[in-house]
């Protein structure tokens, strides 16, 4: 199952982007990468087990990813209108 290795590599690339970048837009793209890695995994196991349930779950993951991207980018627009920045370490209003 080479597909699981591809999925793991993509998950790790997405996690590095999520945890190290400063730009919120790139962080949202990294979340999309992570969700895509999950989808590869679901479809690969669906193929292996000969059962379409994995592909149905992948459809749910895509739907949730669309909802997440819409809400995330809406929040980003509202944030940019208020704070004039998209760098995550400059948005420290709620920091202790």
């Amino acid at each position, binding site marked *: 199952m080479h597909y699981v290795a591809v999925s793991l590599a993509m998950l790790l690339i997405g996690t590095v*982007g999520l945890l190290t970048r400063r*730009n919120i837009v790139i962080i949202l793209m990294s979340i999309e990468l992570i969700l895509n890695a999950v989808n590869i995994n679901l*479809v690969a196991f*669906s193929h292996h087990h000969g059962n379409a349930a994995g592909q*149905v779950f992948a459809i749910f993951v*895509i739907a949730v990813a669309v909802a997440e991207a*819409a809400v995330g980018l809406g929040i980003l627009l509202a944030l940019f209108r208020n704070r004039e920045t998209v760098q995550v370490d400059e948005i420290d209003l709620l920091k202790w």
Partner: protein
Amino acid sequence: MNLEALFFYAFTALALGGALLAITRRSAVHAAISLMVSLLGVAGLFLLLKAEFLFVSQIILYIGGILLLFLFVIMLVNLDAGRGLRQFHQRWPIGAAVTAIAGVAFAVLWSRVQLPPAQQMPETGNVELVADTLLQDYLVPFEVVSLLLLVAVVGSVLLARKRA
């Protein structure tokens, strides 16, 4: 090397290369285009796994929908001001270390897994199979997801709207 393995490595190179470029580019537009390459590679992997319906919905929804949303937001938000700044925040070694630990843990766990023998998909078409599973076994989650999408779209319009 047979043709399927060749296509597998080509699509994998597209998916992982695009992902690497997407998280390292300085310009957000370049990152979005690299993300598109990566999503196309993933769509190709879906095709190799005989998930034709997901292949089409990946291209239509991700590349036609989400990526367009990203490009519109990049256009609305002035990202060029951040081009000359640092791209990675100060505590990036912690993030990289957490990722490395998680990667090693997943690889060790995966190397211990014993998979049951592979089984064949039923011979009916993929779209038919997915539709039957979705609308018979998973009808309630399907309706919940459609409600979630409605709430998310209304919520994002409310969030992004200018204060009256």
